[in-house]
């Protein structure tokens, strides 16, 4: 079941078109919204929240129309914005409890839940400190805590690792991964960082220049056409290529110990033929498996030869 359905959505800011005829179904689970800066990712999130009115098309989130039911939508989803945001003059626990009250939780429950969520987000020790004194990493965590406090069914995370050092980034991704797997919370993560998306998400939506470029499961997107095989040798063996060709393989690439070959048939059917070629060439095989391209290669292929978008790896 899709948590959000977007149909022919067009969003304009004055004369600038941020999203153009955008159609996509966002499935349950952890979904990455991937695209370079300015691609329209944040605009899509803000449209889902009802912050901006579409110039055309329609969108529904958790079965609710974004134009008619924006308040009910905001009650069942949580937003972790990209920018630093907090309510001045409050400690973390006051801030998160207040966010819960704004979402509709009774005061006492909001306070109790704020303590729980802050513990979960790793801010238990610092919960009575004023949020303005927090480090960047802590501010990211408190943004996540305020988004989680009311138990949203869908969590929108806008660049959740922005400004974090490697350790902080690792912690944040682990936190997001844990909340998005097996906890009943669907997560839509907007990011231009490929490794972040690959680490946390199972499904990805690629956006550039306000248009949908690719969508699907990450493992499917990484698959290469024709199911080529990657073979790794223990030592270099110059005759190995000829033996492979004799056994019906087409050699796609060969770099020292790494060979990429292709032949009709399943990997199980092809393995004996690879072993036969290796035996004939006197080569020792260290590894064998279905070839995959990197996520970056997959996305560059998806967005076409424009050379425009630059993803960070």
């Amino acid at each position: 079941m899709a948590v959000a359905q977007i149909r022919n959505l067009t969003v304009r800011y004055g004369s600038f078109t941020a999203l153009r005829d955008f159609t996509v179904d966002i499935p349950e689970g952890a979904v990455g919204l991937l695209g370079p800066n300015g691609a329209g990712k944040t605009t899509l999130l803000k449209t889902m929240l009802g912050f901006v009115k579409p110039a055309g098309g329609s969108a529904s989130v958790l079965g609710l129309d974004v134009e008619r039911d924006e308040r009910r939508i905001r009650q069942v989803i949580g937003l972790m914005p990209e920018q630093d945001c907090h309510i001045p003059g409050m400690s973390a626990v006051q801030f998160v409890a207040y966010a819960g009250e704004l979402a509709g939780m009774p005061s006492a429950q909001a306070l109790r839940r704020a303590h729980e969520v802050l513990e979960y987000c790793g801010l238990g020790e610092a919960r009575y400190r004023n949020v303005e004194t927090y480090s960047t990493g802590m501010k990211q965590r408190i943004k996540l805590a305020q988004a989680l406090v009311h138990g949203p069914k869908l969590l929108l995370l806008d660049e959740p690792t922005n400004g974090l050092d490697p350790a902080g980034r690792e912690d944040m991704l682990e936190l997001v991964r844990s909340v998005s797997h097996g906890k009943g919370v669907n997560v839509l993560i907007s990011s231009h960082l490929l490794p972040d998306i690959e680490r946390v998400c199972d499904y990805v939506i690629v956006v550039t220049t306000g248009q949908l470029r690719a969508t699907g499961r990450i493992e499917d997107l990484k698959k290469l056409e024709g199911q080529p095989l990657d073979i790794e040798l223990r030592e270099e063996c110059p005759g190995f290529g000829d033996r492979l060709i004799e056994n019906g393989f087409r050699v796609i690439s060969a770099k020292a110990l790494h060979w990429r070959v292709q032949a009709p048939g399943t990997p199980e059917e092809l393995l004996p033929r690879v072993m036969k070629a290796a035996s004939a060439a006197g080569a020792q095989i260290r590894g064998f498996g279905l070839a995959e391209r990197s996520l970056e290669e997959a996305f560059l292929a998806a967005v076409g030869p424009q050379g425009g978008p630059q993803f960070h790896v």
Partner: protein
Amino acid sequence: MSSPIADLSYRHYEGVLEPPRHRWWAIAKTTMRQAFRKKVMWVVSASSAWYYLGMVFVMFVLDQIAANRAPNAPDPMEAFLLRIVWKDQFLHGFGFGQILFLLGALILGAGTIANDTRANALLVYLSKPVTKRDYLMGKWFGVFLPLLAIMLIPSLAFFLFGLMSYREKGFVSQDPLLFLKLLLMFPLGAAFHASLVIGFSSMFNQGRLAGATYAALYFVTNFFTQAMVVVHVNLTMGRGETSEAAKAALPIVHSLYYASVDGLNIGMAKAILGTAGSPYFGIPSRMQMVPAPPLLPVLAIMVGLSALMLFIAWRRIRAVEVVG
């Protein structure tokens, strides 16, 4: 290895989520709670009663003098009660309290939207089931209600004191509608301050700048009002007969007297109470008071200015930056 006593893993919230109505009240409550955490707010609140406390002190002293006076000596308390106009005491309480109401408005409201803008807090508010209207209403009531309390509580306490102690001395008979007039006058004053300070707060992203701007407007226009007082006194208390030119200038001076935040509030209070005022603490004076302005024009200006400032605030409250 020891394990934590509490379960720190994420658990989904399955409790009550109230329908997305009346969120403005949660915002108003928090705005008030934050303001009253500041000690200076309590000092301002307590100080706002100073004129009434002064009146009570004067009456206490006169009472003591009257009790200890020589037989056949005139009763100073009786003379005092004949001299004072009860409703004017509320006008003076309101007038002298203006500076404190300004301070209260600055403490309560100067940073209320400005600091939220600086901290991107609007994204937090508006990503919850809170509308712009909820936000603005919440902030407005968060400033208005404490200001109203600061203005109204000392006045009502003095009203009760007068009612219980001086009912036979004209407290009720001088103006039977006084209580209702007070209930109209103080909310209007509080609403005017609240609207202006909320409007200024929305124009800046630093509370101090917003507060400084509102205070500057208040004091610059108030200086003008005070200048008109000087002109008024010179025109009405000069030696000899008032000249024709002075007579012609007086209505203009009187109108200009009310051309300030302070003046508008006092003009509104005079018009509602139906009095031009009288000397403070019942002290005899030759000074003529500036007459009360007509109520409707004053109200129209106050409502117009309040609506303008709230409209500015409405336009500036946004969850998204407009690009392109």
